[in-house]
């Protein structure tokens, strides 16, 4: 299985021999290549200082000085990848990419619609260079229409999909998502589509072009509130605690700084479990609480009792106690806690890699756990252009002199 030091296990990589050109930007674009690279694909990130991935431009890991080699988003989503710095604004840069495409199985991009075709890398051009290539275009909203060319990030998509309108305290104005949910969502969709296209190519020998929309993928994942609006005309707003079903149920404060426990009581067995865990307080014998219906009607009152009980107790001990009585409960974990959590450690939730700048750093593990051909983190994310010479030597058999000439002409940056 995977080693915490990123060593290669002695198993077959499912995607061994599959080469991916990753022109994906920001978060959504990077995640697709990350999934493929964890399972053995050779993912070459084609990037440039002249059109730097936003994921390299964000807040650095340490301090406040911008540094393209120091972004946590990039370190996580581009682990295992190789970096080829290539300035596609130059004719020589485009020529290099044209010569590399025949060596690629998949090309992923999330540039604005029309941007890559203008540089000569639309699907029609790519398939002339590599007839069975698979091209994945991640768009905001397809290739045409009033907002196809709208620029957007994950949080923007939280707004236009209505996701933001659903998050907040019950009965108050929404606070919004504050998390770019739409990015991993469309990134995972893209990985699924890339693998489906590979499977189809295995059977037919044919390539594919796929346009997957971030906006549509997020709307399609909303489900219940959108279905309720369509079926009943109800416009959902923030639910707050009421989003947690059952009674008692909700988010409860515990002893300690910002320690919270989520718990849910649904049926009579759950109720017997929590009463047992609370050591049979007098108020719990009220006959109104004997049925699920009665408890739902008295949810606020029950929650007050539970709140008083949790307030002075240890969050993790309560979660253990309630679960041991068959009650659904969990601590709200911060990342500092998840990094050292026994359960997540046992499931290799994080892997430590040796970063050239920072030294040992954690990146998240691979959640898709296969028994025979596991995915794993092998290498830290590349420095910008770290593998330019290596890739050009290997794929195009360029000499050191040719590479140097390209570098001096400003093509490899």
């Amino acid at each position: 299985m995977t080693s915490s030091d990123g060593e290669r296990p002695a198993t077959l990589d499912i995607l061994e021999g599959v080469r991916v050109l990753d022109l994906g930007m920001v978060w959504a674009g990077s995640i697709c290549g990350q999934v493929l690279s964890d399972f053995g694909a050779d993912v070459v990130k084609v990037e440039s200082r002249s059109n730097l991935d936003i994921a390299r431009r964000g807040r650095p890991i340490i301090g406040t000085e911008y540094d393209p080699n120091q972004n946590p988003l990039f370190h996580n989503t581009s682990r295992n990848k190789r970096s080829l710095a290539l300035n596609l604004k130059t004719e020589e840069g485009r020529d290099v990419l044209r010569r590399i495409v025949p060596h690629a199985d998949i090309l992923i991009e999330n540039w604005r619609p029309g941007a890559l075709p203008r540089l000569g890398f639309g699907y029609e051009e790519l398939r002339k260079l590599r007839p069975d290539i698979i091209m994945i275009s991640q768009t905001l909203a397809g290739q045409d229409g009033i907002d196809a060319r709208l620029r957007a990030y994950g949080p923007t998509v939280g707004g236009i999909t209505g996701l933001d309108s659903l998050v907040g305290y019950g009965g108050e104005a929404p606070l919004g998502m504050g998390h770019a949910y739409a990015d991993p969502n469309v990134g995972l969709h893209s990985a699924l589509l890339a693998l489906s296209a590979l499977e189809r190519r295995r059977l037919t020998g044919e390539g594919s072009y796929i346009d997957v929309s971030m906006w549509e993928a997020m709307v399609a994942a909303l489900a219940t509130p959108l279905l309720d609006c369509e079926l009943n005309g109800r416009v959902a707003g923030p639910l707050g605690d009421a989003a947690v079903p059952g009674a008692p149920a909700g988010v409860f404060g515990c002893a300690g700084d910002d320690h919270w426990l989520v718990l849910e009581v649904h049926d009579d067995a759950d109720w017997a479990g929590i009463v047992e865990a609370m050591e049979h307080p007098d108020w719990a014998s009220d006959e109104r609480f004997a049925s699920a219906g009665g408890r739902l009607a008295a949810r606020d009152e029950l929650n007050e009792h539970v709140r008083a009980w949790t307030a002075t107790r240890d969050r993790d001990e309560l979660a253990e106690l309630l679960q041991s009585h068959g009650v659904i409960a969990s601590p709200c974990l911060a990342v500092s806690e998840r990094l050292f959590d026994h359960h997540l450690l046992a499931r290799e939730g994080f892997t430590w890699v040796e970063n050239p700048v920072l030294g040992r750093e954690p990146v998240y593990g691979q959640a898709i756990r296969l028994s025979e051909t596991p995915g794993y983190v092998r290498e830290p994310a590349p420095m910008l252009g770290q593998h330019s010479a290596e890739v050009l030597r290997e794929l195009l058999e360029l000499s050191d002199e040719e590479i140097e000439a390209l570098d001096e002409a400003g093509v490899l940056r």
Partner: protein
Amino acid sequence: MTEAHAALQPTVAGPLSHLRILEIAEGVPGPFAGRLLHDLGAAVTKVERTGSGDSSRQAGPFRDDEPDPEASGLFSYFNRGKRSVTLDWTRPEGRELLERLLDQTDVLIVDERFGASHDELLALCERHADGDRPLSVVSITPFGLTGPRAHWRGSPATISAYGGLTLYFGEEDRAPIPPPQDLALTQGGLAVAIATLFTVLGRGGQPGRGQVADISIVDVLSSVHTGLAATHWVFDSRQFQRHGRRSQGGLYPNAMLRCKDGFFRIHAMSQKEWRGLLEMMGSPAWGDDPEYQDRIVNGDRYADLLDTYIESYLLQHTKNELFEQARERQLPFSPVRQMHEVLEEEQLLHLGLFRELAHPNGEQFTAAGSPFRWRNAEDDAPPETDPTGAALLRAPRLGEHNDEVYGALIGLDAAEIERLRGDDVI
């Protein structure tokens, strides 16, 4: 054999039309995975408990809130295009039928209700390793099949809490807010669908061994959604925490702010976008103050102040006016839509996202189709809408395909099927 092949043909054409998926999973995660695979052409058969079937048949939302197990919005949405058979797999006779179904299956998707351990699932693959379709099993559970919390009961709210999402939402001095229920679960479903493809590709096109994929929804959230925060925390103790209407990331501006008729989201990932916002607001004098030029410094020191400045502009305009201004300047800002507005969004209508779909009982409603367009290399022109075509296929009635599947696929005669039905096995 010919007849068996005729049964379980895919219901739509697609890249995965050669795959047969068996789904013993309820609610959202497993069924969403099955739905994604159906959209790509796989033949997906749901095995539902005899009696009540998938619990989401009872979950709604229902039209006019009138419960009808053949007209649940959630069930109809996540199970369209599948076949349904009923089976009591806890009884020996039912178990034997299941084993015969598995001989004809490429990938079995199970959730915690199936109740099998990792070793038991491996043994299942072992038993069905021979033949044209070596079996793989993809398990989806809240906490996974291994590890100290494997036995913990889970729910959307607790999965989000353990996976680190819940602490992202809310105001700093108040309780965190559980995110909308289906969101955590759909991410688990995506991982299941990807795992399914990996197990198929892992066979390398040769008859070979299947394998078990153990998906924990907590793992999915804790990695691709919230995992990158660990790298920050180790080096400078920055936690990703809730900040009211402000987004994660530490660069400013990145907030959802009030406007004349609701909320408008401003997100400037680059300096160019920050300058673009100032221009959109008519280049106010404070915008040239050297203090406010660095977005990291803005986030650390001036976020409250800048919110006030920016809101004073936004409050004079409606969200659609602001959207238009952002569009003109190609700025990545957006109105905060409400559900009814989403259903009427011009771009989504243009793309044909919303389509007619029937409930199992035949009543029509509108629902989102697939979020992608697929063009095969050999096709002349790209498809105009998604590959499932104009009509979405409805979800099945409970046990609707018992005769087809148990008869044509595994060869039971009508009398035998009748007997099993009478004994409540199917």
